[in-house]
């Protein structure tokens, strides 16, 4: 038994905001009440800390199987635990692609053997994510996938997307699309705009994303399926999502910490740590994303944790792979950019990390008796500096190396066990 004393419990599910004790018994929460007395229980003093339901990251890349020089399930989930995540959903673009039940089972076995947090795989929509034939989605669902996506690339055609949406609707799975019109991307490496012009780097127009979002919205209308927009990055895309929701469609979206924090103007030195896909957007897009996070149009914050080894990033800007690591800085960035600036409440932020992603996956997240004993304890005041060299990830590709933060994760509890504590 583990007794968490004197924490400020913030639970979006029940709207609880009070200093309470939380008693964990095995992998379940036994009791949430003031002044719990539990002789024999291990005690964790949470005075001054926030106690929230375990954070879920709907979008990450753990690189296993196939690219264990970039990340493994073990190192990736250790980084996730340090970021306050109790569950991470890993994208299927591994080598081989997670497009069949045996790869799914392999991932889950590796996770059972060495993961710090829960790993919920996302299956490929098409075989090899090649956009031709449907993957074994039902078999993968029985093996344990929670959603499908061809992430890394968009679901190739509107016709295939329609099939996947119809099929997943019947299976009760959300379809996550990396929304991008690849013909408009045309070898682009950053957002098209004044900065790409100045740097002489090939630009990707914002509409490369919003056109694909619009396609997904219309297919959602046609099929009635659940369409989820991965790493939404610009205003026009958000407007398509808002309109779809107003029409009662099942369309959801996520935003990454780097997109609500950084802009394309920062790409002034050809530093490949600023290269990600979707690319960093304009200031007005960034502000639109923050507004969407505040008004409820955005459902959740997802990291798109995308580790890359140093050698593959230490190249010419246009030859570097897209992506940055994100687990360990996500919460601190959300506090710094959204909460401390009074753009959203602390409760809303927690929702974006907990009940938000849970709703998309059709599950519950709560700090309540009987719920899973997955909790994230964090501080809103702790002063610390993120050092990429100290990251638990195998990779160091982050523009936030050396960033000073106020507030961040303090302890992560999965199934009643403290998997990480600052």
């Amino acid at each position, binding site marked *: 038994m583990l007794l968490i004393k004197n924490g400020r419990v913030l639970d979006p599910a029940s709207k609880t905001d009070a200093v309470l004790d939380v008693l964990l018994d095995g992998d379940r929460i036994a009791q949430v009440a003031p002044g719990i007395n539990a002789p024999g229980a291990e005690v964790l003093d949470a005075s001054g800390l926030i106690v929230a339901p375990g954070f879920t990251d709907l979008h990450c890349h753990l690189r296993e199987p196939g690219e264990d020089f970039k990340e493994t399930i073990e190192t990736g989930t250790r980084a996730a635990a340090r970021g306050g995540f109790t569950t991470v959903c890993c994208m299927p673009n591994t080598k081989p692609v997670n497009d069949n039940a045996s790869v799914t089972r392999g991932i889950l076995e590796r996770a059972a053997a060495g993961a710090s947090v829960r790993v919920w795989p996302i299956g490929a929509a098409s075989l090899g994510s090649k956009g031709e034939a449907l993957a074994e989605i039902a078999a993968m669902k029985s093996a344990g996938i929670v959603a499908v996506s061809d992430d890394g690339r968009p679901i190739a055609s509107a016709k295939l997307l329609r099939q996947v949406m119809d099929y997943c609707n019947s299976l009760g799975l959300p379809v996550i699309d990396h929304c991008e019109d690849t013909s408009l991307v045309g070898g682009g490496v950053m957002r098209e705009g004044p900065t790409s012009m100045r740097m002489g*780097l090939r630009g990707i127009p914002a509409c490369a994303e919003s056109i694909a979002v619009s396609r997904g919205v219309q297919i959602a209308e046609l099929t009635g399926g659940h369409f989820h927009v991965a790493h939404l990055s610009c205003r026009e895309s958000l407007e398509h999502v808002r309109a779809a929701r107003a029409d009662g469609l099942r369309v959801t979206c996520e935003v990454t910490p780097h997109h609500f924090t950084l802009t394309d103007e920062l790409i002034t030195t050809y530093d490949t740590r600023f290269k990600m896909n979707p690319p960093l957007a304009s200031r007005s897009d960034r502000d639109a994303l923050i507004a969407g996070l505040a008004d409820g149009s955005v459902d959740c914050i997802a990291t798109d944790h995308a580790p890359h080894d140093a050698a593959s990033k230490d190249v*010419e800007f246009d*030859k570097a792979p897209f992506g940055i690591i994100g687990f360990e800085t996500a919460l601190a960035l959300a506090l710094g950019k959204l909460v401390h600036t009074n753009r959203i409440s602390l409760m809303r932020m927690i929702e974006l990390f907990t009940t938000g992603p849970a709703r998309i996956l059709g599950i519950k997240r709560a700090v309540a008796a009987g719920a899973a004993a997955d909790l994230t304890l964090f501080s809103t005041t702790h002063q610390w500096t993120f050092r990429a060299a100290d990251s638990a990830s195998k990779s160091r590709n982050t523009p936030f190396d050396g960033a000073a933060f106020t507030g961040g994760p303090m302890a992560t509890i999965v199934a009643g066990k403290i998997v990480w504590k600052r």
Partner: protein
Amino acid sequence: MSCRFHHLLGIEPLTREDISFILEQSRPFQEIQSHPLKKLATLRGKTVALAFFESSTRTRISFGTAASRLGADSMNLQAESSSLRKGESLIDTVKTLDAMKPDCIVMRHSSSGAPHFVQQHLQIPVINAGDGTHEHPTQALLDAITILDRKGRLDHLNVTIIGDILHSRVARSNIQLLGKFGAHFTLCGPAMWLPSELETLAPLGSSIRRVSNIEDAVRDADVVMVLRVQQERLHEPALPLDDYILLYQLTPERLRLAPSHAIVMHPGPMIRGLEIDPVVADCPQSCVLEQVTNGLAVRMALLFLLIGGPHDESKEALHAAD
């Protein structure tokens, strides 16, 4: 004024004073081009690495000749024989070159920012001889000295640039350089090579307007720069060559619409009958050959400035600050 930089990565980070200083320092080297004996021993014992990852003939020969006229040796790495084709990373190739102890590296690369990236890994000066669609600083400097010779000034010129502006590093460097001297640019070319963001490139005190009609574009020009049509770029987006010639070739009739004092420049290699009419290429207003000669002077000056003096740690790296 002394040389406050250690690299030449682009024109953008230079001040007007830096540019004027480089141009002044190019003057003595301009004279040397007319000497019966053009070879100096100034940089005897120094080695210039010419790393042309993207094939180039004229710029490579110009830098090689500049080095040789200063008495320096050069080592040559060419795209065709490059180990890059065998899959070696840029940084490994450059470190291998560096291990042969050159005193500076002149590089051309098809990736924008490649010299900025390389510079972070090396102690020796890096001279950008063209990076992707970003900058070609020595071209802008040689153009500037050519303009100074012909027009006697750099300030507040009306400069018309015709062609594929979007993909042109020559245009970008010239906009940076002449823009710092208050130029008013008229950019002219097919609409898909003339996006509105180009207007944001104008340095403070200069202006950029986009014009699709060449007759309007040349009307008030002091300087008309004709860009090379890179045929490989015609594929994206596909633009029929005949349309380009019809709409944008600089013909004698079109040049006549410009003031008679206007000069015509071309960075080369020039394709007569495509972007420029042969009559214009050879007319008295054309200064394409002066550009080539001045290229030697400017490159000699830069080599002298960067490796001719004492080794000085305090020199500031001229790349955008982190």
